């Protein structure tokens, strides 16, 4: 090995340096610290609370910081029946959340209207917001919510936001 190469090697930082893509680093930070906006509207919210409590402990997956202010939230967990009257408020809160943001439709009602085939119930929150993960169940057990959260983490891990920005920038020049 050449002399200068040996001199450049610093054994003190060995193991403390990771080479990665910027996208991957950002995704890693985002996915392990998802702050949920608990949009609890019905009985699903009870299971959401159980998922946050000690037995299931959603903190193990970095999503324990329930924020009741949309401006501090990353993921909106729509837990419960969305009536048309409430849909106006849900949409407004969603619009107040800063990007990047994700949405989990928790339970049958939030996903599709559930058993409420009725004049007053929005037939799925995806008619108003882009939903990333649907969780079945009426209500889903906390394990199902955690599984949905892991699915969302996997999805975030696959995002390439900086690469996309670069691509859009190049496209705007050409």
């Amino acid at each position: 090995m050449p002399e200068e190469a040996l001199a450049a090697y610093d054994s003190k930082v060995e193991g403390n340096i990771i080479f990665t893509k910027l996208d991957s680093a950002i995704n890693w930070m985002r996915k392990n610290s998802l702050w949920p906006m608990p949009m609890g509207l019905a009985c699903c919210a009870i299971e959401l609370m159980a998922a946050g409590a000690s037995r299931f402990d959603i903190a193990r997956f970095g999503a324990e910081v329930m924020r009741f202010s949309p401006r501090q939230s990353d993921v909106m967990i729509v837990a419960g029946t969305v009536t048309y009257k409430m849909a106006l408020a849900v949409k407004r809160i969603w619009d107040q959340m800063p990007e990047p943001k994700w949405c989990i439709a928790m339970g049958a009602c939030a996903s599709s209207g559930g058993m409420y085939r009725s004049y007053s119930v929005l037939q799925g929150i995806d008619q108003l917001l882009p939903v990333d993960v649907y969780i079945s169940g009426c209500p889903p057990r906390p394990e199902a919510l955690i599984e949905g959260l892991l699915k969302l983490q996997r999805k975030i891990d696959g995002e390439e936001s900086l690469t996309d920005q670069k691509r859009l920038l190049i496209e705007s020049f050409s």
Partner: protein
Amino acid sequence: MPLSESVAALEGKFSVLGKVEFRGETTLIVRREDIVEICRFCKESLGFDYLIDMASVDNFGEEPRFEMVYELSSIATNDHLRLKLAVSEDEPAVATVSGIWPTANWHEREIFDMMGIGFTGHPDLRRILMWEGYPYFPLRKDFPLGGKPTEVPEVAFTKAAPLEGGPFVTLPSTATTKDREPRARRIED
């Protein structure tokens, strides 16, 4: 004052169109114009200090179409009195009793929202369950369970729920429940 005396006092003071006694429950059918005076008399002189509930009935296909039901109760004597009055479809309006029992405020808003009966003199007659600007009255019998599509700008839209006209819809008529209920029909009807 026992309930029979209260009823007699009411009958002496106001015109009572009908009286039904069934299993210890007394129902008086009264004139629409008198309802505020009757309610005030019931509360102030007969001791019915508690309005348990207000309801409305849609007798679709009959005239007068609507019916209002007032459930009165006395906390001191535990008496229970029911007042009914008919409301026509041409003039769906009743005088408010929210000045007598404040709880009637929201009961009347709900009836206005769901059945479309107005309350003259109400201090704040807005919809309570559906949003402002919703054009229908969903608990009327001719309104389909699945709803009707509406298009209000921004996000206040509704679509008919998938079961519209489907097997779970009760037919609007005055026939008995057995003939109106969903199981009386085949699905393809």
